[in-house]
């Protein structure tokens, strides 16, 4: 019973609007669904490095216990290690490989136009640590996790990203029942996995598809065709936000529109619970996304 949500502004050039504040409210309204961990990813944040060719390698590192360590954060620190564009790909791979062998490290993925933060605990804990309510951007996604298939730690928290392709993030509600099979196929291709959560396979699968043909619609269609089990996921890239449901529609995925006004921008919002749309005023054209289909917004 995870809770997922996403928002995309209709006009994408509104750098001063705190999309994080909307995501926070949507997540808070769904907090009763899940309390194990919370995370968000926001795109086109306007940070300085968004427009250059460098990017970040994001990972958690387990810090030694101190008096400041709390159970909410589990003693993990989120690191954004800047990778200069000039750094050879081989060196980058070696760094990732080295980190992935370190038991105290949990890799998240690469980002350039994406700000991804996640942690154990509630969304209010996440906000306290990362001030997510002040984050600006063109679109974003959020997740509240209740663990079903893997343990509760930051590495298994959503959104999931990859080191296969920068700036892809996925939040998921449900189960991918043929996860092992899909993961094995992707591992044979050489793609690394860093968690034991079934949801990670969606991000890696989409990254693989995007590398092959660059078409997000086709990537989702392929995933719907190949994945078993009940799932709804929201996937984001710097240029798109998608709501995708399994072919039987066994997990909720609802979308609504807020036309804005009085200085506020218009946006589409998507979530698990209707109350999450209502709380941000996305009460127009409310509908459930069609089963077995992907609903894609592009910028």
């Amino acid at each position: 019973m995870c809770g997922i949500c996403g928002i995309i502004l209709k006009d994408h050039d509104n750098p001063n609007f705190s999309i994080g504040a909307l995501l926070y409210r949507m997540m808070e309204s769904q907090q009763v669904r899940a309390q194990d961990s919370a995370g968000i990813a926001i795109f086109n944040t306007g940070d300085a490095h968004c427009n250059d060719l460098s990017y970040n390698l994001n990972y958690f590192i387990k810090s030694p216990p101190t008096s400041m360590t709390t159970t909410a954060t589990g003693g993990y620190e989120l690191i954004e290690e800047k990778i200069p564009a000039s750094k050879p790909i081989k060196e980058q791979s070696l760094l990732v490989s080295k980190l992935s062998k370190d038991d105290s490290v949990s890799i998240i993925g690469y980002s350039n136009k994406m700000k991804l933060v996640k942690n154990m605990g509630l969304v209010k804990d996440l906000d306290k640590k990362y001030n997510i309510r002040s984050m600006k951007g063109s679109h974003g996604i959020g997740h509240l996790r209740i663990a079903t298939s893997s343990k509760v730690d930051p590495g298994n928290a959503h959104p999931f990203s990859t080191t296969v392709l920068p700036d892809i993030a996925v939040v998921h509600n449900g189960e991918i029942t043929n996860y092992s099979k899909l993961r094995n196929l992707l591992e044979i291709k050489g793609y690394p996995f860093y968690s034991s959560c079934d949801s990670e396979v969606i991000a890696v699968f989409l990254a693989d598809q995007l590398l092959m043909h660059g078409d997000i619609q086709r990537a989702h269609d392929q995933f719907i065709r190949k994945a078993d089990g009940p799932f709804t996921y929201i996937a984001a890239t710097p240029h798109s936000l998608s709501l995708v449901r399994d072919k039987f529609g066994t997990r909720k995925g609802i979308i609504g529109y807020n036309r804005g006004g009085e200085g506020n921008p218009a946006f589409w919002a998507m979530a698990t619970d209707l109350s999450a749309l209502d709380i941000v005023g996305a009460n127009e054209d409310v509908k459930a996304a069609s089963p077995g289909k992907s609903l894609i917004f592009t910028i």
Partner: protein
Amino acid sequence: MINKLIEAQFKKNSKMCYTLDIDEIRAIVKDIGSRVSNPITQFENINNSLEKNYGVKLPYGLNQVSIEKFGDVASSPLIIERAINSIMKKIIVEGETKIVLKNPKALYRIGILGFEDTVKLDLIVEGNVGNFFGAFCNFDGTWIVDGNAENGLADKGYKGKIIINGFATELACQNNQTTNFSSGVNVLIKKGCMERAMGQARGGKLVTFGAGYNSGLYMSGGVLLNLGLPGEMFGPGMVGGIIYSPEGTTIAEGAVIAKLTLEDYSIIKETLRVFENELFIEALDNFSMENPTLSLTNNINKNIQKFNMHDFIKIVPKTTN
């Protein structure tokens, strides 16, 4: 705004009407949370305050689960959920049978009251409710929600009438029960149930202005009347019950489409009779196979809608056809 006529009728008939603003309870809990950080003390103080103000006490187990899930007691919605249901239960035991709940703010599990025997209760909820509103409900009366409902509306319900002025997201009337003392909960959803309406229902009547994908999933009894747009893949695995929906509705494996017979018009009439007042149905007594047009409105401020039942199909299990 809640349907004015229904509200007026409700208040006119109310000698005793208990209004409970859930924000008042939230304020008590928040105030305690702002002054006390120890969750065990929070729980004790909340319990003392609820006992003093409302005459109810919460079970101790809520303490532990709240700390486990939400880090403390004061920020746990489970406390509010349980407090509301305990207060409602106490009010009913004391003989008051009309309750208005204000500011539900999509709180989950409102109306799970735990009475073994049928209780008399009319209820108005002013706002959205969350998952499992009225689950296990077993009441005589009408419950009205002036807002949306989420999953599992009236889940495993036995008796009563529920009206939702907004949407229900999915699984409305799921596991609706027919027993030797009940015929299931009757539900009206004015903006429609998004998906899987009447999933696994064994009884009851659902009238909805829209029913989404896989409605009637594993249905084994009851009536689903969809007065909204045609739906998709209705009746997967259904073994009983009847679905009426506009032509164009598609079916899933296990269901078949049939034409309406004389008996169906009687069933539709009896189904609509449950909501005759709420839908302002004109001349329902005259409705028949020869006179198949229904005139009604699901919103007093909107125009009368006309439905010709000749344009509807019946969906039943394959085995019974």
